[in-house]
């Protein structure tokens, strides 16, 4: 053991996703070579993020201002809302630059095995938006898993009383993969989701 302080830092870094014990040790030793100011700047940034970044009260996106930059952007299509499971999914869709509507982050998926029910997700807030807004289309973009499908099924039941069009993003084959190696569930979803060409 080098020193108690270093070991503590290694253990803390080790808690981050994708950082194993070895990488944590390398990062900790690297920080020791930095100037004290540089290290302080990094620490301040982390504290800053934690204290300034909140959730948007409308869509649950991460934001420093209320509402978030997506919800307050008047150039976006306010009649369309895409429902996603996690904030990471929102960031992924924003990277495409193709979607110009609004979002709604559920913060999870319905999962009986984990004891996560509809009441644990931001579903009532979505229904509130539908009741009091100008939304005409809901795009279900829940993850392609049993839990994501269950969430989509539940949502589509909740959405029937509303006069909105409900669509779901395509399920099926990843671009660049080999068709012959795809499993039967993936292929049948791809077939079900086929469209006019």
């Amino acid at each position: 053991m080098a020193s108690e302080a270093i070991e503590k830092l290694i253990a803390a870094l080790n808690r981050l996703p994708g950082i194993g014990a070895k990488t944590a040790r390398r990062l900790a030793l690297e920080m020791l070579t930095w100037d004290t100011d540089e290290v302080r700047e990094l620490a301040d940034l982390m504290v800053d993020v934690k204290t300034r970044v909140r959730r948007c009260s409308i869509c649950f996106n991460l934001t420093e201002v209320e509402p978030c930059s997506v919800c307050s952007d008047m150039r976006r299509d306010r009649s369309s809302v895409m429902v996603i499971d996690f904030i990471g999914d929102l960031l992924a869709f924003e990277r495409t630059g193709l979607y110009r509507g609004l979002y709604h982050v559920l913060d999870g998926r319905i999962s009986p095995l984990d004891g996560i029910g509809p009441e644990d997700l931001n579903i009532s807030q979505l229904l509130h938006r539908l009741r009091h807004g100008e939304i005409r289309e809901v795009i279900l973009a829940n993850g392609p898993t049993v839990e994501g499908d269950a969430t989509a099924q539940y949502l589509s039941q909740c959405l029937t009383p509303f006069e909105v069009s409900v669509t779901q993003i395509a399920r099926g084959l990843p671009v660049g993969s080999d068709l012959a190696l795809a499993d039967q569930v993936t292929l049948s979803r791809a077939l079900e989701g086929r469209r006019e060409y």
Partner: protein
Amino acid sequence: MICHTDGLVLRGFRMSESSKVVVLFSRDYGKLRLVAKGARRPKSKFGASLEPMTWGRYVFYRQDNRELQILSEGDIAHAFEPVKQHYGRMAAGSAICEFLDHITEDEDRNPLLFSIALEAMRWVGSIAEIALDVPVWYFQIRAAGAVGYRPHMSGCVQCGARLQRHRLGFSPGLGGTLCDKHAGVGMRVQFETVNFMAHLQVGRPDRIDLSLLRGVNRAEVTRILRAFFDQHIESRYRPKALDFFERLRAAEPALPYGAGIQDL
């Protein structure tokens, strides 16, 4: 050693950014915990074969004294799509997978239990929605029998007397039903309920007579099973999926089962 086995995926956990751990109830090796590297990536070779409630053929590399084994292949045999594509059926299937996980130890081989699980999963996908509780009860009762905790329901567990229509009891501690004379020590139960539960013990799904559901009190079956398993199967955690399923069912009408049964 490279091993091949059929198995039912009970659940999965995220392990790292791209990998996951799958709990598999396998026919040939019992319950296994398998690491599937890269399984969370969109182009993973495992595809949909590691989703919970999937019956597949799996290849893994087995090493003794390892808690986690390395999974190398997964091929879907039956994806139970009718279960996964319906909210209530998915909840029932989850309850079955959770119960199977709950009553088994790692690497304790039990091919009978495996085939009961597949039967129950198929039944969850095909039975009329009104009777969706039945495959779950069926699995709990048959699975308990397959691991050595068969509730005694064919007579009085104390004296062996035949069960009469009225004044019946059930004792979780004694592990079965009680006749009029001995019913004092147990919980009060109805004849129709016990009769139907006993019926579930004997047949395979295709031989279960669902007309016997008439007069069965759903909440009573649930209460009996809970009390029995609390007593006999060590419970370190509260069942989540079963709670979820029972909440969903409790919101449904038709209690006790009446009209509608003849259509089954």
